């Protein structure tokens, strides 16, 4: 858990440098709300305090990174508290939740305050003096080189997780392969087949966050190679469909959350001397 958090830090730091104090406020509020919600719920339920497992910290960080930087501060607070208290604690705490808490919190915000989360392409006052467009809708995001750097930093963190086998490589592989294939084939459809703008699709911060850090949550992903590939492929296909026909910002998050529901089914995938 702490390793995953550490792998998110470079991307988060770049986002803060790029977008300035506003990003820092969103981060602080989300992490604080997640920790506070976990504390309050466990105090109310007379449970042992489990802040030490780092899961609430990670949840708050993921919720903050998946939100745009210009939201009013109560949005990250409510989303992170919902993630920790409702999505995780209501089902019995870490290890018993069926949906990734950060995904749940992000989608709660998306369906509750769609107007506040809508794209506002305005330059942010960052500390680097770079003007980053905010079209991506995640705190890491942005268009152009600056936005791509944060995605690259996320990808480096994710690659470390995959190399250490903390996250299963099959999930992001299936996710990226199916999403890229579908987007390349159908993404530029009014113009013609096989004309999708791949770099902008794969380089978005929300896609990297969902594929590398949220879909790979070991609690809410299936066991076994085939099941994981199918899980990732489903995420990819759904996020393409949701991006093409629905909200562009939360498509990867909604896709991963939808696939979370299929994990009990995918866990019955016939494993023939599986890897684990």
């Amino acid at each position: 858990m702490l390793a995953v958090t550490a792998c998110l830090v470079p991307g988060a730091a770049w986002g803060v440098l790029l977008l300035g104090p506003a990003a820092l406020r969103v981060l602080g509020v989300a992490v604080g709300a997640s920790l506070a919600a976990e504390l309050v719920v466990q105090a109310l339920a007379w449970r042992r305090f489990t802040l030490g497992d780092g899961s609430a910290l990670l949840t708050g960080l993921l919720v903050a990174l998946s939100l745009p930087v210009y939201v009013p501060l109560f949005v990250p607070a409510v989303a992170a508290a919902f993630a920790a208290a409702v999505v995780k604690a209501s089902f019995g705490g870490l290890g018993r939740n069926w949906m990734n808490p950060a995904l749940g919190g992000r989608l709660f915000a998306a369906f509750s305050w769609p107007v506040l989360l809508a794209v506002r392409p305005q330059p942010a006052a960052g500390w680097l003096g770079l003007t980053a467009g905010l079209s991506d809708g995640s705190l890491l995001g942005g268009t152009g080189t600056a936005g791509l750097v944060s995605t690259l930093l996320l990808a480096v963190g994710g690659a470390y997780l995959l190399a250490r086998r903390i996250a299963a490589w099959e999930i992001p592989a299936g996710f990226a392969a199916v999403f890229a294939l579908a987007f390349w084939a159908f993404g530029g459809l009014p113009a013609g087949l096989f004309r999708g703008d791949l770099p902008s699709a794969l380089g978005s911060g929300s896609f990297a966050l969902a594929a590398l850090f949220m879909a790979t949550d070991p609690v809410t992903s299936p066991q076994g190679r085939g099941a994981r590939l199918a899980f990732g492929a489903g995420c990819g296909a759904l996020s393409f469909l949701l991006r093409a026909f629905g909200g562009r910002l939360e498509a990867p998050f909604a896709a991963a959350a939808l696939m979370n529901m299929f994990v009990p089914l995918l866990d019955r995938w016939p494993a023939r001397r599986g890897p684990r």
Partner: protein
Amino acid sequence: MKSGEFRRILWRDNPLLVYLVGLCPALAVSNRLSNALLLAAVMLFALLGTGIAAVALERWAPLRLRLPMRLLLASALVTAAQRFLWAFAPTHAAGLGIYLPLLAVNCLLLASAASGSLAESVAQAAGRGAAFAVGLGLLALAREVLGAGTITLFPIGSFGGVLRLRGLPPARVLAAAPGALLVLGYLSALSRWWSGRRS
């Protein structure tokens, strides 16, 4: 009926919050408090009507005729209530939509078995109707306050019927379909905790 028994029906045996009976209309119309109260009133009327008629009729009816009789009774009463509402309160009836006639096949109406004397049957119907109203009212109140930031009641005199609450922008997901299940889950847990607290 003793008051302890009434309280038991209200909380520990609440048909909506504990047994999750009658969910279909409850989840659909609990987005507004006025809709919920109206549906609960129709439900109470139908429960009382079927309760009284069942005691009167089922004494001599053969066993295999009781269920069809009950279905006919329920649909007749619900249709009457629906006609009445459309005649005198068409906007409210429109707010309930298809869920008003659907009450005729609601499992709460079909499951309430008539037993014993007339007084017992009426008391039981009233208790169940009140418990359904309390559960539905709580559900609708929570959903409307959190999900829409309003409390909709019936317009009386100069009062327009809608209270607008100040505060943060409401979480719209709670007024949408998934919100109904979320809030119902928490209310159910709360009522179980409340009734298990003293026993």
